[in-house]
């Protein structure tokens, strides 16, 4: 990856989300809202079935950033908006585009746009990130 405006961060295509993964994420995160794990409950509250934790989609984007930066990268600040519900079976593709680069004493500071798209091309989450590449 070249540190240049317009350069794409390497894509991360995650395997299809499974219901088991949502159970694992509930346990690992402590978010036990049954809309993520109990099909009957999610139906009853009008969601038409379980939905993935927004934070799981954000974690996928975080993984994409970590892999794009490599071991010398340090995430400084980032944020996303949760835009669309994600469900078991969905395949998320995480990507980013560099929007700014500046040089500082201890390395480059890189700004980028980030997004996770579903297999239908719908934005699940999108936002911006700033990271530092250590020398």
């Amino acid at each position: 990856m070249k540190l240049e405006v317009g350069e794409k961060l390497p894509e991360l295509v995650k395997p299809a989300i499974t219901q088991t993964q949502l159970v694992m994420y509930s346990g690992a995160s402590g978010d036990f809202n049954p809309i993520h794990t109990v099909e009957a409950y999610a139906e009853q509250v009008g969601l038409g079935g379980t939905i993935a934790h927004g934070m799981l989609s954000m974690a996928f984007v975080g993984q994409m950033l970590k892999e794009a930066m490599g071991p010398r990268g340090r995430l400084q600040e980032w944020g996303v908006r949760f835009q669309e519900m994600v469900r078991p079976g969905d395949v998320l593709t995480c990507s980013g585009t560099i929007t700014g680069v500046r040089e500082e004493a201890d390395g480059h500071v890189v700004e980028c746009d980030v997004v996770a798209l579903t297999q239908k091309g719908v934005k699940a989450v999108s936002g911006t990130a700033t990271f530092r590449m250590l020398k």
Partner: protein
Amino acid sequence: MSGYEDFVGVVSNTVPNEVEKGAIRKFADAIGDDDRIYREVEVAKAAGYRGIPIPPTFSRTFDFGVIEGLVLPTNGLIHGEQRFKYNEPICAGDVVYCSRSLLRVRPTSGRMGKMTFFMFEGVVKSGSGEVLLVENSTVIQMGAGE
């Protein structure tokens, strides 16, 4: 929406959280990230960390305490936005001190009907009081609420 504004600026209790190596591994397993940096201290050290670092969104698993008296509705809440700002890496074995506060409450009405935006801030500090990480989350309540 009466009442919520009274909680703006009120800070929760501070909760010590031990950053556990096993919790980091389970979190990495759950998100499907098999990176050895989350499992082997030698790999983390080779990348310049003091120890096994937490994944970027891991701090959401910390206990940030309770804002005394603030009760949000349990139904119709949506996580709208999430931000993280990192000052220093947090690693397995650290004990960090977490608290949160309600920054803003904003009722709106638009094409989706009535909505209320709650903006929270969580602060993670070291034992010496240094701010290591700040997270901001916006939670949206759909409908008139109550």
